[in-house]
């Protein structure tokens, strides 16, 4: 009985044998990579990359709710992605513009 349920999932049209499963799965990799980078020094954060991560996350979050059928896996991965991007941007902005630390050689 349990075996047939697993089989149903395995053979699902958006299941692990299809790209509709793996595309959002790999998108989680971007958020995981970003979370791993939370511990990196802010000097190494790239403004353009994090702006791209945030904007992609926000736009795709919106659109994953207007496509048919609604794809909540896609929605959740993009919400998290936008969240990690915003956090990284906040870290770098705080470091660059609001930090009390004196940077040697900087006027």
């Amino acid at each position, binding site marked *: 009985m349990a075996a047939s349920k697993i089989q149903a999932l395995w053979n699902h049209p958006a299941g692990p044998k299809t*790209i509709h499963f*793996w*595309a959002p799965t*790999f998108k989680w990799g971007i958020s995981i*990579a970003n979370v791993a980078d939370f511990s990196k020094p802010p*000097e190494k954060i*790239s403004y*353009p990359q994090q*702006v*791209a991560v945030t904007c992609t996350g926000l736009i795709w979050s919106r659109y994953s709710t207007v496509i048919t059928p609604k794809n909540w896996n896609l929605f959740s991965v993009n919400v998290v992605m936008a969240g990690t991007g915003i956090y990284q941007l906040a870290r770098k902005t705080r470091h660059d513009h609001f930090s009390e630390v004196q940077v040697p050689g900087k006027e």
Partner: protein
Amino acid sequence: MAMAVLRAFWNGPVGPKTTHFWGPVANGGFVVAAMADMKKPAETISGNMTTAMCLYSGALMRFAWMVQPRNYLLLACHASNEVVQLYQLSRWVNAQG
């Protein structure tokens, strides 16, 4: 004649009034960001993020091909991103020493 082509695009099933257009455009931001980062020193590259991008764009190229309707704009964005992310990854690998 040109107006007819533009109007067909504007009102088309994968045109700027649809999500099938803006999703890929948003993903094009990754390409623009990576091109800006190509000029920066290799020490600023994130190995985690670049690897994730390479896997992600590989998967999304396949997704763009298989999805209904087939989305060539998405395919083009991710093919470009794959190239530029692989280049950044090679820079990062070389900088590891």
